[in-house]
C-alpha cells in the first residue's frame, strides 16, 4: 500500500496526464486542472508533483518538440506508467471501499 500511495493533488495531476494523453506537459496540465476543477494552481507546484511522481515511477517522460510559442524551448511530455495506473486504481478502490463503508443511516438522516 505504502509504495503506491498518492496524495490528492498528485492524483489530480496523474489523472490529468491521463486525460491529455499525448500532449501532457507542465503548462498544459496546469491549464487542464484549472479548467476542470476551477481551482487555481501554479505551474511550479504541478512541476514539482510531476517530478515527484516520475521519481516514484508513476510517470515516464520524454522530451517533445519545440514550438514557436515557447520561444523554441522543449517540452517534457509525460505518460502514465503501469504502476501509475495501478496507483490510480488503488486510490479509486480505496475510495469506493470507504464510500461503501458509510452506514446507510447517515444518508437517510441527511435526506430527511
Amino acid at each position, binding site marked *: 500500500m505504502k509504495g503506491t500511495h498518492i496524495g490528492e493533488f498528485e492524483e489530480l495531476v496523474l489523472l490529468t496526464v491521463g486525460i491529455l494523453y499525448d500532449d501532457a*506537459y*507542465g*503548462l498544459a496540465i*496546469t491549464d487542464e486542472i484549472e479548467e476542470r476543477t476551477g481551482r487555481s494552481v*501554479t*505551474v*511550479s*507546484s504541478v*512541476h*514539482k508533483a510531476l*517530478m*515527484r511522481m516520475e521519481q516514484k515511477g508513476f510517470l515516464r517522460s520524454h*522530451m517533445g518538440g*519545440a514550438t*514557436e*510559442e*515557447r*520561444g*523554441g*524551448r*522543449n*517540452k*517534457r511530455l509525460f505518460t502514465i506508467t503501469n504502476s501509475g495506473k495501478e496507483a490510480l486504481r488503488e486510490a479509486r478502490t480505496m475510495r469506493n471501499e470507504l464510500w461503501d463503508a458509510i452506514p446507510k443511516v447517515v444518508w437517510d438522516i441527511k435526506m430527511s
Partner: protein
Amino acid sequence: MCKLPKHQPEPPKLATRFLRWYCRAELVDEVEGDLYELFQRRVDDQGLWKAETLYWLNVLMFLHPDYIRKRNHYPTNHTAMLKSYFTIAFRNLTKRKLYAGINILGLSIGLTSCLLIFLYIHHELSYDTMHTKADRIYRVAMKWNVADQQIDATLTPPPLAETAVEEFPEVVNAARICHFLSTMNIRYGETAIIEEQVLLADSTFFDVFSFPLVAGDPATALVKPNTAVITETTARKYFGNVPALGKTLLVGDGQVPHEVTGVVKDLPANVHFHFSMLRSMASLEFASSDDWFEHGFITYLLLREGASSQSLEAKFSGLVEKYVGPVIPQYFGVSLETFIQQGNQYGYFLQPLLDIHLHSNLDQELEPNGDITYVYVLAIIAFFIILLACINFMNLATARSANRAKEVGVRKTLGSLRSSLVGQFMTESVVLSFIATCLAVLGTNLLLPSFGNIAGKEISGELFVQSWFLLGLLGFTLLVGILAGSYPAFYLSSFGPVEVLKGKLTRGTKSRGIRNILVVFQFFASITLVICTLLVYQQLEYAQAKNLGLDKENVMIMKGAQSLSESQQAAFKQDLINQSQVVNASISYDIPPGSMARTIFKKNTAEKGGTLHVYEVDYDFLATMQIELLEGRNFSRSFSTDTAAILLNESAVKKLGPGNLLNEEIVHTGSGKTYQVVGIVKDFNYESLRHEIQPMALMLTNQGTYLSARINSDDVSATVAQIESLWEKHAPAQPFQYTFMDDNYEALFRAEQRLGKVFSIFTGLAIVVACLGLLGLATFMAEQRTKEIGIRKVMGASATNIIILLSGDFTKLVILAFVIAIPVAYYLMQWWLEGFAYRTNISLWVFVLAGVGALLIAWLTVSWQSIKAALANPIDSLKTE
C-alpha cells in the same frame, strides 16, 4: 534553441538569467518553456507589466531544493565561510562582554529613540490620510487685513460653499462645518451630559470626507433639520447596546429634539478635527444666510480629479468682487475699490487638507494643530542620536583594534584575503546591530504607551506588523551595521601583517586623532541638546510665571450660565458673592484666556479704525480678575449711560490713538453705534505669550455664558462642593462644569510643555549613549595603560594622581566640545525664542550648568575605570610578561 522572432515581447531577462543560474541543467529547458508560454499568454490577457511581475513570481516559486543545481565543483564554500564568520563573531562578542554590552546597549538605545521618533513623525504625517479623496479636498481660508490688523482665519461666509460649486467647474462638491458653541448639553431620558465637539455639518459632509457609517445612510443622514450623526462612543453613552438609529436626543439648552440618523465609526486620532456629534446644518438658520460678511463656516471643497488648486485660487478675487464687493460699504462706508486703496485686503485662499495638521495655524482652527518645525527638530534629534550610537561603535572598534591587530596579522600571513577580513569585521558589526535592533523593537513596544502619553498622542505600534516597515527596519539594521562597521573593517584590514607581527604598530594610538574628534562631536551634540532643553524649560517657566496683568490663581470658572435668565444669573451671582469663601464673582460672555469676537472701532474723528478684540463683561469683571484700572473708572451702576460705555486696554489706546482716548467717543464701524471710553485698563494677557497683547475693548453686559468666582479658601474642594450645591439650586437642569483659570492658562502651553518633556527624554538618552561610549573608551585606555600605571605607582604616584592622569584626556575633550556647543546652542535657541512675543533672556547659568553637568557626567563615567586602575595592585600588572 532557435532564434526568436523579434516582435514578440520577451520575459524579463534578469529573471530568465536567474532561473538559468540556479535551475538544474536538465530541467531548465522545460521550465523556461512553460513559463515563456505562460508569459506570452499573460501579455495578451493582462498586459506586459503584470505579465513580467508574474513571471518573476513564477521564477521565484521554482526555487525549490529539487530544482536547484548542486554546485560542488569548486573547493571554496561560501556557506561554510559565512558560518565561520558568525562563529568567530560570536566568540569575539562573548569573549569581550563589556565591549559587546556597551555597543549593543548604545545602539539599542539609539535605535529605540529613532523608532519612537519615527512612529511619532509617521503619526504626524498621517493626518487626514484616511479620507479616500484626501488629495482633492481643500479648505478655504480667509485672509484679511483691515486697519493694519492681519487676520488669517478658517472662517468663511455661509454662501461661499454653494457659490463655489455653482460657479467653478473645478469644484465637484463642498461641505461646511460650523464649530461655534460646540459644547452642548445633551439629554436622553435620565442621561444628561455636556458634550464637547458638537459640530454642525452640511448634508454633503460624507461625500467629501470618508468617515464610515456603521448605521444610517451617509447620503441622507444630514439632510433634514434637527437630525444628527453621532459616533459609536456617543451612542453607547446614551443608549448602551440599544441601536441608536431613530432615537431622539434633546440638544442644547432649548432641548431641541434631534433624531439620530446615523452612527459613525469612532474617529481615529489622526484627523484634524474630531466630533462626538454632527448636527445637520439645516438645523441652523444662519446656515442659509447669504450674507457675505458674516464669517462663521469652515468650508471644504472637493476638487475634480486633476483640477489645479492654483487656478481655482486665482478665481477667488473675482468672487470677492462679485459678492463681497456690494457688502463692503455696509461695514466700512466705502466701496471695495476704495477699501483696497486704503491699504486693506480681503480674500480667500486654499489649504490642501493633508497640509492642515502640520502647516496651518490660523485663527479659529477646529483643534490645535501640530507644527512641522517640531517634526523636523525631532527628526534631527533622532538622526543625531543614531549618529552618536554609530560613533560609539566605530570608536570602540578602532580602540579595540590594537588587540585585534595580531589576529589580522596572523590571518593575513595564513593567506586570508583582505575581502574576507572585511567580511569578518562587517559580520561582527552586523550581528551586533541585529541584536540591538531586536532589543530596540522590544523596547519601543514597551515604551510606546508612555511615550504617547508624554507626547499627548495616541501612537499605535501597528506599523510593526507591516512587512514594508519590517523590511525597512531590516535594511536599516544592515545599513547601520555596515556603516558602523565600515571604518574599523577597512582600517583593521589595512594593517600590514609584517609590521603588526613585529609589534611595530603603536597600539591604537594611530587612530587616536579620529577617536578624539568623534568624542568631541558626541559631547558637542549632547551638550547642545542639554542647553536647548534647559532653555525650553526656562522659557516655559518664564511664560507661566510672567505677570499676566491679571491674577489667574484661585479663579473658578463655570460654563453653561446661558441656560439661566438674566434675573436667575443675577440671583446666582449674588448667592455666590454671599459665600464667605468667595471674594468676588462676575458674569461674562468671554473669559481669559481666549478671545473669539473681534470687531472694528474708530475714533469719532478718525478716517481709519482698528480691529479690537471684544470682551462682554459685567460690573465686577475687573475686580474678579484683578485687572488693574490705569485711568478713568470702571463700569458703574450709578451711571445709567454705561450701556454705551466702553473700557479699552493700553494697546487699544495705542491702536486707535494718537492721544489719550479717555472720555472720548469711539464708533463701532459695523453698526455705527457710539461708545464713550470711560476707563483704560492695564494690558493683560488673554492669549498665548507667543503673541503680543492685542488691542481689546471691554463692553458691558448683564448676562453671559460664564460665571466666574474668585475664591479665597484653604479647602478648595469644600468650596467647590459648596458652589456645586448652589449650582444645583439655581440651575438644576444644567450639569455642573467648572475649570480653574490657571489650568486654562497652562493649557496654552501644553504643546510646548510636551515638547519640553520629549526633548528632555531624548536629550537624556543622547547623554547616556555618549557616556556609554566614554565608558568603553575609558576601559580601553585604562587597560592599555595598565603597565604604565603600575610603574607610576611603584615609583610613588598616588591614586589621586592616577585618576587625574586618566581623566585629564577626557576633560580636555569635553571642554572643547563645550566651547563649540555654546555658539551653536545660542544661535538655535535665539531662533526658537524669536517665535515668542514675550521671552526669557538666554542666561549664562544655563550654559554653565550644561557644561559643568557634562563634565561631571563624563568624570563619573570615567572614574569607575580610573579608580579601578589606580587602586589595582601594581604587582598584578607588572608580573606578567
